[in-house]
């Protein structure tokens, strides 16, 4: 009952226009009184949740994104991408998906791709005819490739809690990631000319003339060195992903100041402040949703819901379908960390009993996070994409739901019912 009131309150506050962060805080207030939470430790738990070394990658990658924009890096990259794929139907949308995939191999979270890819590509996409709401929705779901493609903080958390091999969990979600990439590119191509008209490169008035292939590539080389610095840093054993985020910000400053010379002290200052503001809005939402998650977990709400499902459904296939649906629904109303750490592991014994391999289940959970993080009301990644894309949320919700229904859920279904998609790579690598 309290759960239903909480969901209702959240929807009400958000829909009338209370800022999302304060809507969450309002629900937190309701739940803390309903469940008689301890006010000595409630905010302390919130503080602990955001006081995380891994989370520090967030402001750093947000900053890198803004610096790539103000330092001229994004501009050169976009020119380069346009020259390469711009002529193809749906090319710009596809390159945002691919770029997110590449970023996913750099960072363990989705936020990195949202911040960096979003600041670089949403404007050019708009010039090419893509509505901002659509681009932001596409960005939101593409960025989740960051948790499907290793390294992935979600998979680490899941492996730690369920005592599975992290390497095997990492490898398991690569297959679904490739499927998601293909699905998104196809869906985007299908949408061109149906949802919106694509403007071909250089056709629209006021758009700059595109440079030749050679010149565009040459100009983009310093910009392209940035992912190489990040990837080389991580896979070369120089730094952790979080540290790589700081190196990326620093290198972006260097390139902006000394190579492209688009960056000035003043622009650096306003980029840093704008990045801090974006970070702050996201962190406050995270802070309150973490605290809500804590209250629910300590009341065993998710656990009890699970037990109810278990008692209702008996057939293995039906159980798999029920778990899928349950993960999607909890993903809608809880943050991804709570789903990964609290809800998903509860089904583990049930999954094993139904003949589902734990590693296979890990990749099902990863797929559910892709959907959950973009499904309102609790859709932090979609909201962040809207923030970066400077578009109001309601313009993004419909395109996001369509992408979820026509791409995200089918990918999750294939992942669920074709175990080999997940297990092929772990087996190939000798991890199971």
């Amino acid at each position, binding site marked *: 009952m309290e759960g239903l009131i909480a969901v209702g309150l959240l929807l009400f506050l*958000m*829909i*009338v*226009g*209370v*800022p*999302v*962060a*304060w809507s969450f*805080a*309002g629900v*937190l*207030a309701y739940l803390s009184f309903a469940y008689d939470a301890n*006010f*000595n*430790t*409630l*905010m*302390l738990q*919130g*503080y602990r949740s*955001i*006081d995380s*070394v891994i989370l*520090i990658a967030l*402001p*750093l990658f947000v*900053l890198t994104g*803004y610096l790539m*924009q*103000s330092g001229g890096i994004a501009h050169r990259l976009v020119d380069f991408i346009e020259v390469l794929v711009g002529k193809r139907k749906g090319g710009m949308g596809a390159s945002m998906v691919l770029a997110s995939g590449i970023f996913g191999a750099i960072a363990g979270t989705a936020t990195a791709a949202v911040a960096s890819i979003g*600041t670089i590509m949403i404007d050019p996409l708009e010039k090419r005819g893509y509505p901002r709401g659509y681009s932001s929705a596409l960005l939101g779901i593409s960025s989740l490739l960051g948790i499907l493609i290793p390294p992935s903080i979600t998979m680490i958390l899941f492996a730690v809690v369920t005592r599975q091999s992290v390497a095997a969990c990492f490898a398991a979600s690569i297959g679904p990631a490739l499927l998601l990439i293909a699905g998104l590119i196809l869906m985007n191509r299908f949408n061109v000319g149906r949802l919106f008209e694509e403007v071909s490169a250089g056709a629209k008035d006021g758009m700059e003339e595109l440079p030749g292939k050679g010149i565009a590539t040459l100009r983009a080389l310093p910009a392209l060195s940035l992912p190489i610095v990040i990837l080389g840093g991580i896979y070369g054993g*120089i*730094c952790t992903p979080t*540290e790589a*985020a*700081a*190196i990326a*910000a*620093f290198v972006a400053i260097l390139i902006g100041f000394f190579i492209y010379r688009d960056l000035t002290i*003043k622009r650096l*200052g*306003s*980029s*840093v*402040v*704008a*990045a*801090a*503001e974006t*970070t*702050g*809005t996201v962190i406050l*939402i995270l802070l309150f949703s973490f605290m809500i998650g804590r209250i629910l977990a300590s009341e065993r709400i998710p656990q009890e819901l699970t037990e109810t499902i278990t008692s209702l459904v008996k057939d293995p296939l039906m159980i798999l379908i029920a778990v899928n649906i349950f993960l999607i629904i909890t993903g809608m109303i809880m943050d991804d960390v709570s789903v990964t750490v609290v809800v998903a592991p509860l089904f583990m014994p049930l999954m094993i009993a139904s003949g589902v391999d734990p590693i296979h289940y890990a990749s099902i959970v990863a797929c559910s996070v892709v959907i959950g993080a973009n499904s309102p009301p609790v859709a932090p990644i979609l*909201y962040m994409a*809207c*923030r970066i894309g400077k578009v*109001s*949320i*309601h313009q993004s919700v419909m395109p996001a739901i369509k992408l979820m229904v026509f791409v995200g859920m089918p990918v999750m279904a294939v992942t669920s019912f074709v175990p080999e998609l997940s297990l092929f790579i772990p087996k190939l690598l000798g991890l199971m």
Partner: protein
Amino acid sequence: MIVRFFTALDKKIGWVLNAAALISSLMLVGLMLFLVLARYVFGWSIVGLLEVIMLFGMWLYMVGGLIASRKREHLVVDFVQTNIQDQQIRRLHQAFLSLVTLVITGFFVYLSYRMLKWGMRRPQHTPGLSIPLWIPQSAILFASVGCALYALRDLIQSIIGNDTHLLVAHEPAESAIEEDR
């Protein structure tokens, strides 16, 4: 007269907040780089550096959140707002939102206060450098109080019918970003 005073005050506060965001961001990047250099290039083991980094991180988070309150740039689902045509109703709606926000941020202030109060009874320190936990935690109290005050500002403005955001020296948030390229 009063308006001019508040406008000047707001500008000063804005300057201080921006400076705090700038300093904590640059410290974050700089110290993190130093951490990598120390470990990878020089082979030094520096105990507790991450604790300082996290300290600046927490202040960055909270100052960032406060800047967003000051500029009214918190993430909003705004389709009700954009669909109200009538000026009077729009003001009423704005007043209602500000009031709700004020009450909720008041709760935020209370929670932060209780955290610090409990922290005085059971003080904690970081393991490496013994940094007292109230230093990063007070960033949260600071932000909560600031956000509540800005909610109060918004409420007053919507009541006195000031739609032009007179009390905010309106600086384009992302001037550098939005410049036409």
